[in-house]
């Protein structure tokens, strides 16, 4: 608003270059934002699978073949680590992003909200994993 530097006092504005590397808090923030891209990329992998499924059996089997390739398995392992970090980082910030929850006249503590989110994520992941595991071709 009133940052015009035109007077005799010569206020000095420092550059922002490399700002996120100077503080571990910002490094973790950038990691949270960056791992979102991995989550998005994985959505495209699944979308490609759906498209192959719609295209017919051979296309779908080809897609499965690509997934079984060692490079693909290694990428999946890395994507899993990124997704776990991304999930954790969002539940960590969740208490700051939601309206306060009051139970019995007391505000629910931030770490309780984070822990609830993490537990919910673990339960949903396990249920989904078991559901998929139980479908035998």
């Amino acid at each position, binding site marked *: *608003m*009133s*940052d015009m*530097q035109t007077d005799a*006092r*010569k*206020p*000095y*504005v*420092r550059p*922002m270059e490399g*700002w*996120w590397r*100077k*503080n571990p*808090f*910002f490094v973790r*923030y950038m990691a949270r*934002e960056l791992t979102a891209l991995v989550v998005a990329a994985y959505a495209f992998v699944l979308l490609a699978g759906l498209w192959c499924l719609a295209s017919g059996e051979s296309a779908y089997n080809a897609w499965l073949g690509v997934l079984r390739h060692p490079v693909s398995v290694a990428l999946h392992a890395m994507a899993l680590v990124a997704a776990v970090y991304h999930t954790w980082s969002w539940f960590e*910030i969740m*208490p*700051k*992003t*939601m*309206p*306060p929850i009051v139970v019995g*006249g007391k505000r629910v503590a931030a770490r309780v909200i984070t822990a609830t989110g993490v537990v919910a994520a673990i339960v949903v992941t396990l249920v989904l994993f078991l559901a998929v595991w139980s479908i035998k071709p």
Partner: protein
Amino acid sequence: MSRTINIEVLRYRPEQDEAPVFQSFSVPFTDDMSVLQGLQYIKDELDSTLSFRWSCRMAICGSCGMMINGKPELSCHTFLRDFYPGGVRVEPLNHFPIERDLVVRPDDFISKLESIKPYIIAKEVRRLDQGEYLQTPAERDRYEQFSSCINCMLCYAACPQYGLNKDFMGPGVLALLHRYNADSRDGGQAERMELVNAEEGVWNCTAVGYCSEVCPKGVDPANAVNVNKINSAKDFFFNMLGRKGAGK
């Protein structure tokens, strides 16, 4: 027993310096000395030209905010003993133009603060004979923590979005805006929602969350900003449905 610590101070003297430079001072200190007292020692004993702001020395006035070893802190609230045997590096608050040495120019923050009408706009104006504006403890709890803000601007120095884009309203001012909007006696919400809804209002925030970490008064500006993203979205949809001024 006094020990000696190295304090590096970023100096900027506009009449002689093209850009800020660090200057080192050896300062004897005792366990009860704050970084502010270290700077006062420098000014009294070593270099009287050093400029910095301070007033209350007890984390109430919000004048002595500085970057201390890269973190926004109140210098009266940070102790030299915690850095010994290492040194302390003191810089002016990030994201504000440096006026001189550790003094920054807060004009942008002040004009933003004024723009949100940081006072109660009575919902219904009462006459003197009608008595006080009453409020229950539960109603007070809805805004109480946000009213602890002392305008020290540490959260602005902690916010990279404000650093990158000066149009962003920023954490502290939005927390104070929320303090008044959430007050049951206040009726100024519709006027303030225009500022909240703007791109430069809450929507420039990307939930970095560092503002709440550095606040010396336990205010949670990140929460105020993000709760108002919900309010802003509600306001948008209610207005689309033709209901004006909805938001609380």
